[in-house]
């Protein structure tokens, strides 16, 4: 199964089909209206429609007063046009008939301005309420994240704090047997260290700024990070393999942050294989909807992720690791860093077979293969 974190966009195909199905009926209805208009008013409606077009545009973009001015000018112009035509062809002037014709036109123009104005107001209010809804949704989402974060912090820090407090009290009240006092103190120290490490990770989680970006060779970042992780992987009987493209991929990133992303993903891969196995770290060029991207994949042959857990893997404090092994911040931090760089992380996993995490980073259109000497 596959979980994409980019929002799904309505397909262009659907819109095109909609256009094709609506265009013909619309044209038919318009022709019918013009014919009926001609018949009913005796005015050449098709000709009148030529005036309506700029009036409609003017109303839509500049408002009612502007539209009405255009309507009046158009009515005068069409009257002047008929007058000129009649004089040129030495025809009789029928003032009442002309008044009827062009008064009718003016009426249609003003009606058009009114319809357009109302339509515009309706669209505007729809847009505003939609924006409001989106804003409220975002706010709710933020609160949700804060709530989750608070619950996670409470849970992660609550237990060690409780152990510390109880042991300290036991020692203080001289209730602990003398031979266990040392162990109580050791526990207090260990748990304090655990709390300190959680707090450090939380600070890392909050401190991302993407301030320090440099033109970096992604391959070099990968190699140096993997070198750091190799001892741990060997200890766990995991073989870490790196596959880099022939041509280096050079992007402007914060290389420390990107190293952290890779080490979080690779660490997960190693921990997902308790019996050892192989993990592949691969970098390649690709394109996504016509944009060039760099894809950094970390795959493992581990336990995979349960389908019901997949939507939550990037949530802060979500973890399936045992107590003390993970805080559930690694993937959340990785996701945040990649998002700061304009990219995204996707996960493909099969329960019992392994997982693959893809970090997709946008590339500039012209990538020069040369790295400026620093």
């Amino acid at each position, binding site marked *: 199964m596959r979980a994409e974190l980019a929002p799904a966009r309505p397909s262009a195909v659907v819109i095109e089909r909609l256009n094709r199905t609506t265009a013909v009926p619309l044209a038919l209805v318009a022709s019918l209206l013009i014919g009926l208009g001609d018949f009913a008013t005796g005015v050449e409606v098709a000709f009148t429609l030529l005036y309506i077009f700029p009036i409609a545009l003017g109303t839509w973009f500049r408002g009612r007063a502007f539209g009405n001015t255009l309507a009046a000018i158009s009515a005068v112009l069409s009257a002047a046009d008929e007058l000129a035509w009649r004089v040129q062809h030495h025809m009789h002037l029928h003032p009442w008939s002309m008044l009827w014709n062009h008064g009718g036109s003016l009426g249609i123009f003003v009606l058009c301005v009114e319809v357009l104005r109302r339509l515009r107001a309706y669209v505007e209010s729809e847009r505003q309420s939609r924006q409001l809804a989106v804003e409220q949704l975002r706010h709710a989402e933020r609160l949700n994240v804060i709530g989750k974060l608070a619950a996670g912090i409470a849970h992660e820090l*609550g237990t060690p704090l409780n152990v510390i407090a109880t042991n300290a009290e036991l020692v203080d009240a001289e209730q602990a047997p003398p031979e266990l006092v040392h162990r109580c103190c050791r526990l207090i120290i260990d748990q304090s260290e655990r709390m300190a490490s959680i707090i450090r990770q939380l600070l890392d989680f909050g401190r991302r700024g993407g301030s320090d970006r440099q033109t970096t060779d992604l391959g070099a970042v990968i190699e140096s990070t993997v070198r750091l992780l190799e001892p741990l992987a060997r200890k766990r009987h995991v073989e870490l393999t790196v596959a880099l493209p022939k041509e280096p991929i050079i992007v402007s990133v914060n290389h420390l942050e990107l190293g952290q992303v890779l080490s979080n993903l690779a660490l997960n891969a190693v921990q997902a294989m308790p019996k050892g196995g192989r993990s592949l770290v691969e970098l390649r060029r690709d394109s996504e909807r016509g944009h060039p991207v760099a894809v950094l994949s970390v795959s493992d042959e581990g336990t995979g992720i349960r389908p019901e857990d997949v939507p939550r893997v990037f949530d802060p404090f979500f973890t399936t690791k045992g107590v003390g092994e993970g805080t559930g911040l690694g993937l959340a931090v990785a996701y945040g860093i990649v998002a700061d760089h304009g990219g995204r992380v996707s996960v493909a996993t099969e329960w019992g077979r392994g997982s693959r995490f893809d970090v997709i980073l946008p590339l500039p259109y012209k990538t020069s293969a040369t790295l400026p000497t620093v």
Partner: protein
Amino acid sequence: MGDEAFHQAPTPEARRRPSVLIADDSAEQRWTLRLALSMMGFDVREAADGRELFWALEELSRVGSPEPSLVIADVYMPSYDGLEVLEAWKDTMAGRAVIFITAFPDSVVSRRIESLGAELLPKPFSLRAFSECVRSSLRRARAPS
């Protein structure tokens, strides 16, 4: 923390003492509670997650012994959470005291705990609050309602 001392009772000389079952996924937390409870004169059994708690209660329902008279369970644990398990063995728990410990008691959890007739002890707690809670819930469980 896979140390031997964490898994054995700090005070071994135990005879006919009231016993307590502790279910918590943190070994350090279990060890600390075990120490505190044995100081209070209880025998202690442990379950490291929801699954172990489930089987401990299953055994209890078969054997039908009155001990342990108290179960202390963490709400959030791997495999099954403490609430789920204790709700499943509600009948077995009749006449026994139950204390739930959790770091973030939200309203849903509190309501479920209340409907089980159990006590809720939010983390972090003091030793005094803990022993107070143990005593009061045992007293409540013994007194016929």
